[in-house]
């Protein structure tokens, strides 16, 4: 078999896209599908362009009350007392609640599929009764006839605080003198290590080691060690959190909310309110963005408690400052990373020490950070230590490839520095060191077939890389990134309608067009048009447990469930045709063109047999249920061209290309959209975005004016090159696509800034004041 280096590739336009939408094609290997790879109009599209789609805040119910949540003005304080009596007396107020109105929680770990949660910590995060740990931490809530009455009443709630000193920096927080946020936290050494016995802010210490690290560095010709910092950033979804709940007199709780995972909301609400999951129904509304930030509960249990107390449905909406103050964010970090290379530019060893903010309670994405830091390269000897450290900021949450963007900044800029020092082209270095099938990560896991090498090859062949960049203060950088993706539980049920169409129901909330890509996979198997499938996202009483829309899992795992449902329909239709023809079902085949064929040239179309279901045994429903575990990893490599204004330090992106191995693109437009959107978020993280805290721990920029995400005027066209190295764990080869595009941008931008200015940026964001400071320092 030819080695990967001998294979012939070209980059060409991806059919149906604009000229900036391309793909890498291997000579002699093009996918051959009817529906997969086409660009149908998404099924939910018309509702979304006409304003008819109903999001979380759009729910209306008879007798609906509006609520308001009172939040802590302090970053760190003990709650001495809460007196709600004055609020309760305000005319129009129907209920006031505090943590005391929720069942008490104990320290038990809940497994949310993709991660764990300590129920006591979640209880305290939803409504604090012991300590407040960040400004904006919820302490009480009011339900009233209008939100204005609720707000006025909430201001009458008297909370007595004993203010404590806050700690905001991970390096300070792990020190012996630091104020300890949670007296129940002990350092847990993982995987499979022991737990410490003294209260600390360091909740977890992850340790990975492979090979002989010291010998690896000793064998290196060049060793580079650098320190990096990144600031706390927010997912920045445009729709604020919202929840509406009704606690019925029969004990059933219905929650209408926008979430990435209605079944995870059901589990969290049931657990925190101490009711069985069967008593909770979560109705997923359309969701206005999540990126990892709409998985945990905030308002849902509070709305339910207010509903129980008032006997009426209650709606709670956050405003934008609440969203910044109390939800999200993703951690700030401190990182020290060291890489050694031999004279030929092959990596001999890597070492990393990573400190991530957990926020108020344990749970930062430090472990994936550890596992991603050297994931793109074949690192024979490695040692990685990562620490999950509590600080007085909101409890951190996942944000698109959680942890990987941080560490890519470190590794990818050191790689660029190595290339510069050794005079090696960054593309050549990456082709030489890229991980391939069978390579072992530092955590010990070996790779299945992956497309890291192919993404570099696509960069090499791209018009962008081959077009020279000219002009002063301009530079081009590249960087790579990795994300695991996820599989998990998904359920699809698909009913054949008499007119030859299929109604598909699923539990995956649709954040970015997944209804379409799931429906397309069912259509491909059945040989019908995507438009002949009607996909609907249903509530938790109507379909089986489906994990979050996150981890880049939906197109893969819910797609697998749709494929299984389609195969189930095929098998049942073969039986029906056998009945019609009076033959054995084994004699019937479901063939191409949605046609069933039997003995003696008998044929019947899907459309025809769909009209004969009543007389052959009744409606046909296909079922697909999976717990997918062969999702394959995803790699991406980005090219950034920038121009740096030497007078202001402002970085302008001139041209940007995202190259990514997606396995197989089901709906290329939405795959490109994920690549472009992830890159835009990464560019924002690179250049602008950061939480500004005062020394008192108050967040100073809790608005979109001061926490500035990229606008369309800040960004260039974002070109895409889709690489399709099929995932053997999916019939069409689907990998996840949503997360990895956020990983390379900060490093690609930093490398481009270096090529433009000669200055290495090792601290995010690379905002004008910081870039200017570095420019001026380097001149002096």
């Amino acid at each position, binding site marked *: 078999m030819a080695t990967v280096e001998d294979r012939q590739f070209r980059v060409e336009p991806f059919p149906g896209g604009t000229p900036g939408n391309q793909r890498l094609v291997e000579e002699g290997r093009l996918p051959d599908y009817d529906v997969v790879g086409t660009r149908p109009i998404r099924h939910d599209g018309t509702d979304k362009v006409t304003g008819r789609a109903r999001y979380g805040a759009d729910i209306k119910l008879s007798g609906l009350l509006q609520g308001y949540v009172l939040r802590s003005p302090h970053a760190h304080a003990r709650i001495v007392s809460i007196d709600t009596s004055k609020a309760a007396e305000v005319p129009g107020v129907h209920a006031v609640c505090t943590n005391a109105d929720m069942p008490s929680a104990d320290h038990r770990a809940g497994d949310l599929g993709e991660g764990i949660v300590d129920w006591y910590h979640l209880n305290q995060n939803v409504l604090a009764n012991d300590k407040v740990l960040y400004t904006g931490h919820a302490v009480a809530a009011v339900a009233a006839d209008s939100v204005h009455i609720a707000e006025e009443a909430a201001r009458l709630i008297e909370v007595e605080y004993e203010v404590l000193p806050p700690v905001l920096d991970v390096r300070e927080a792990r020190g012996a003198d630091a104020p300890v946020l949670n007296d129940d936290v002990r350092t847990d050494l993982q*995987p499979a290590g022991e737990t410490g016995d003294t209260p600390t802010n360091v909740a977890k210490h992850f340790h990975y080691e492979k090979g002989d690290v010291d010998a690896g560095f000793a064998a290196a010709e060049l060793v580079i060690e650098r320190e990096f910092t990144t600031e706390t950033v927010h997912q920045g979804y445009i729709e604020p959190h919202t929840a509406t709940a009704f606690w019925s007199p029969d004990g059933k709780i219905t929650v209408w909310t926008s979430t990435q995972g209605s079944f995870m909301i059901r589990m969290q609400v049931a657990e925190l309110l101490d009711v069985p999951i069967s008593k909770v129904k979560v109705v997923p509304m359309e969701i206005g963005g999540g990126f990892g930030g709409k998985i945990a509960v905030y308002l849902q249990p509070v709305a339910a408690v207010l509903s129980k107390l008032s006997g009426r449905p209650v709606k709670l909406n956050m405003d934008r400052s609440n969203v910044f103050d109390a939800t999200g964010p993703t951690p700030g970090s401190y990182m020290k990373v060291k890489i050694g290379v031999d004279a030929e530019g092959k990596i001999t060893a890597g070492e990393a020490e990573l400190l991530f903010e957990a926020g108020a309670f344990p749970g930062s994405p430090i472990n994936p950070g550890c596992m991603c830091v050297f994931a793109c390269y074949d690192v024979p000897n490695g040692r990685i230590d990562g620490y999950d450290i509590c600080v007085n900021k909101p409890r951190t949450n996942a944000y698109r*490839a959680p942890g990987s963007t941080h560490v890519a900044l470190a590794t990818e800029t050191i790689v660029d520095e190595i290339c510069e020092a050794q005079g090696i082209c960054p593309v050549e270095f990456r082709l030489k060191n890229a991980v391939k099938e069978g390579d072992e990560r530092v955590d010990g896991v070996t790779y299945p077939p992956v497309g890291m090498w192919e993404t570099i090859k696509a960069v090499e062949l791209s018009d962008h890389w081959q077009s020279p960049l000219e002009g002063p203060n301009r530079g081009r950088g590249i960087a790579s990134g990795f994300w695991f993706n996820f599989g998990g539980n998904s359920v699809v049920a698909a009913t054949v309608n008499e007119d030859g169409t299929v109604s598909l129901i699923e539990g995956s909330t649709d954040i970015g067009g997944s209804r379409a890509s799931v429906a397309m996979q069912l259509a491909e198997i059945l040989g019908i048009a995507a438009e002949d499938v009607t996909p609907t996202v249903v509530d938790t009483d109507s379909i089986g447990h489906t994990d979050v829309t996150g981890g880049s899992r939906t197109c893969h795992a819910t797609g697998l469930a749709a494929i299984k449902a389609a195969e189930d329909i095929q098998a049942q239709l073969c039986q029906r045709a056998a009945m019609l023809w009076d033959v054995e079902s084994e004699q019937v085949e479901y063939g191409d063109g949605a046609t069933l064929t039997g003995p003696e040239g008998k044929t019947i179309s899907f459309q025809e047999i769909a009209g004969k279901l009543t007389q052959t045994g009744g409606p046909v429903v296909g079922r697909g249920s999976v717990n997918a575990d062969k999702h394959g990893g995803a790699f991406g490599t980005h090219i950034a061209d920038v121009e740096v204004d030497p007078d202001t330090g402002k970085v302008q992106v001139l041209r940007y290309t995202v190259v990514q191995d997606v396995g197989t693109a089901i709906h290329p437009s939405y795959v490109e959209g994920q690549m472009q959107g992830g890159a835009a978020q990464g560019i924002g993280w690179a250049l602008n975005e950061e939480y500004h805290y005062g020394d008192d721990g108050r967040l100073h920029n809790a608005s979109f004016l001061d926490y500035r995400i990229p606008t369309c005027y800040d960004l260039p066209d974002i070109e895409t090159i889709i690489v399709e190295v099929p995932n053997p764990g999916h019939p069409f080869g689907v990998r996840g696509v949503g997360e990895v595009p956020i990983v390379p941008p900060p490093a690609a931008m930093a490398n481009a800034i270096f090529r433009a200015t000669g200055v290495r940026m090792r601290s995010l964001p690379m905002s004008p004041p910081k870039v200017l400071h570095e420019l001026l320092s380097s001149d002096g």
Partner: protein
Amino acid sequence: MPRVHIPAPARDLTGGEVELELEATSVRRLIGALDERFPGFADRVLEDGELKPGLRVAVDGHVSAMGLLAQLEPGSQVHFLLAIGGG
């Protein structure tokens, strides 16, 4: 025999051994065999007879949905990993 990768924090129990071959047909039995050879290993990975919260088992590079029940083939590679939350 299946091969098991010992996580770095547990190598204090295995005398620094990183990878071992052990006779076992399931992950549960593999942990039992490890604990027999390296007393204390089971306590590092199990709680009340189940995998510790958040701990996962990967077989041949894929985090198995079956956990302790995952079946092992003679050449299977086993890793202990933590659950990874995506965005």
